[in-house]
């Protein structure tokens, strides 16, 4: 798990630096999912940086596309893209746009508007089944993504089709753009909801590498149902002053604070 921690730490420090340089937002969303992304790319996804279009690769769609920088960091660490691309994130004539893009090697699908990832992943899961392929489809969602009607349309349909090759991971940090989720759209007990919709669900600590790996390497939880992993996370995990805050959704770390923030993240990882 040391590697997972290393990758997650780099995702956090990269995200802080990239958003600082760009003066762009969503650092809280990147940091809450950092540990899950690290485990996905280190332990779970069958993908090959030398052959990013390998037909039998696992598919991963980041439906919370605004947290793209976290995935870009993982892709750079794994060798899908050059490290220097990260330095020009969000810049004129750069390679990495603010919301995740399939123009980047290793990125399966572009998102940015919420509610798009799961329907497309459901179609990919159908196509994999039709092709009699063992490849798996993973989608990362968020509180806001779970507000979208289209997400729930796909939740209904994936269960109807018994798509056991489909796994939905919810980065459940319980904060969204304008408030804590319970004050905006209170999803309450998401496990009960998803189970009622016909999914096999496991709830984990989204910052515990063992729990993340154990859950994601056990899918499908039920051979007749799609799987959902509700990862309880903390918005902006790793920057104490911003953890579990609404402002971390749009915030970037200013120049005068950045070294202290990076130092804290790296020390926490020791």
């Amino acid at each position, binding site marked *: 798990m040391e590697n997972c921690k290393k990758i997650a730490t780099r995702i956090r420090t990269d995200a802080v630096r990239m958003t600082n340089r760009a003066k762009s937002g969503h650092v809280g969303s990147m940091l809450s999912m950092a540990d899950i992304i690290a485990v996905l790319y280190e332990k779970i996804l069958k993908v090959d940086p030398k052959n990013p279009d390998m037909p039998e690769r696992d598919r991963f769609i980041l439906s919370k596309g605004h947290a793209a920088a976290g995935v870009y960091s993982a892709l750079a660490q794994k060798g899908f893209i050059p490290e220097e691309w990260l330095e020009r994130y969000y810049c004129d004539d750069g390679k990495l746009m603010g919301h995740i893009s*399939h123009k980047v090697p290793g990125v399966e*699908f*572009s*998102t*940015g*508007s919420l*509610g*798009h990832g*799961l*329907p*497309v*992943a*459901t*179609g*990919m*899961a*159908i*196509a*994999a089944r*039709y*092709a009699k392929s063992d490849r798996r489809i993973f989608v990362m969602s968020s509180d806001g993504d779970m507000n979208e*009607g*289209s997400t729930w*349309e*796909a939740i*209904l*349909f994936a269960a*109807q*089709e018994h798509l056991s090759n489909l796994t939905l991971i919810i980065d459940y940090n319980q904060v969204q753009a304008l408030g804590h989720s319970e004050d905006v759209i209170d999803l309450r007990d998401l496990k009960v909801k998803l189970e009622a919709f016909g999914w096999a669900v496991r709830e984990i600590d989204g910052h515990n590498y063992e729990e993340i790996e154990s859950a994601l390497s056990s899918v499908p939880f039920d051979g007749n149902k799609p799987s959902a992993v509700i990862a309880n996370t903390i918005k902006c995990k790793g920057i104490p002053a911003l953890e579990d805050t609404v402002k971390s959704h749009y915030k970037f770390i200013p120049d005068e604070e950045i070294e202290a923030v990076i130092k804290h993240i790296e020390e926490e990882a020791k």
Partner: protein
Amino acid sequence: MRAVFNKVLLERAKNDPRIHMVLADIGYGEIEPFRDTFPERYYNVGVAEQNMTGVACGIAMEGNIAVTYSIANFPTLRCLEQIRNDVCYHNANVKIVIIGGGVSYGPLGMSHHSTEDIAIMRALPNMVVCVPCDNNEAIAATHAMLDYDGPFYYRCGYKGEKDIHSGPIDFKLGKAITVREGKDVTLMFAGPVGINVLHAADMLEKEGISCRVVSMHTIKPIDKEAIIDAVKNTGGIITIEEHNLSGGLGSAVAEVICDEHLSPKAFKRIALPDVNVSLIGHQAWIREQYGMGDEGIAAQIKEALGK
């Protein structure tokens, strides 16, 4: 027209295992042969057009052809962002088929009219926009759609459309078909309203006005050469479409006229006015109310020609 579309789709699917159909609980009485012949390639996602389009995109991203199918504006407007972000941005091989373009579903009312679709679909990068006018074109357009690799909007008619082409046609995407030659003006139409255009041309012929009649079945990419030729050799163009005045065939033709610095002696767009159509009546009657019956079209052409 929907019957011939479904027939050709079924025939093609027999020889092409990539073809999938993704529905949103619409198609009763038409789609059953596909469902029963290819259950492993048939999906009804329920009444959920956004998911229909997203699922179709996911299927298409894996090397398949996914056809979404519903009536009027259901498979375009409700799921427009899925068409834009998922299908068009990824250039996915998704075919968006609507049954009942324009006011085909007349008495069902405004919710079931598809009267802004051409404008919206043709504004999307990577999208082909095709509006067949009769069964002949519908058959050819279905083949062309399935042969084309990429996003495709197919605005199908409903049922009982009369033949506009009297014989075999040479159908190519982006190439208009001349239904009848004429020298005084060119009538460019898209879709089944062409039958009224043809009747209007007959009426005008008797009054000594010779009209070239052209089916502009592909609105994107538009056939520039046909427009240039019409202006040079017939002097003017009248467009006719069962669509809002804004953004459809007439606008597409006008754009070419401007871009190519053409100076037609006559130009007019005959279309539905910029209103929410709330008249209660069948398609032919609604057309008449908006000057798009045989006589209405003939009168507007004469007015445009100053006769």
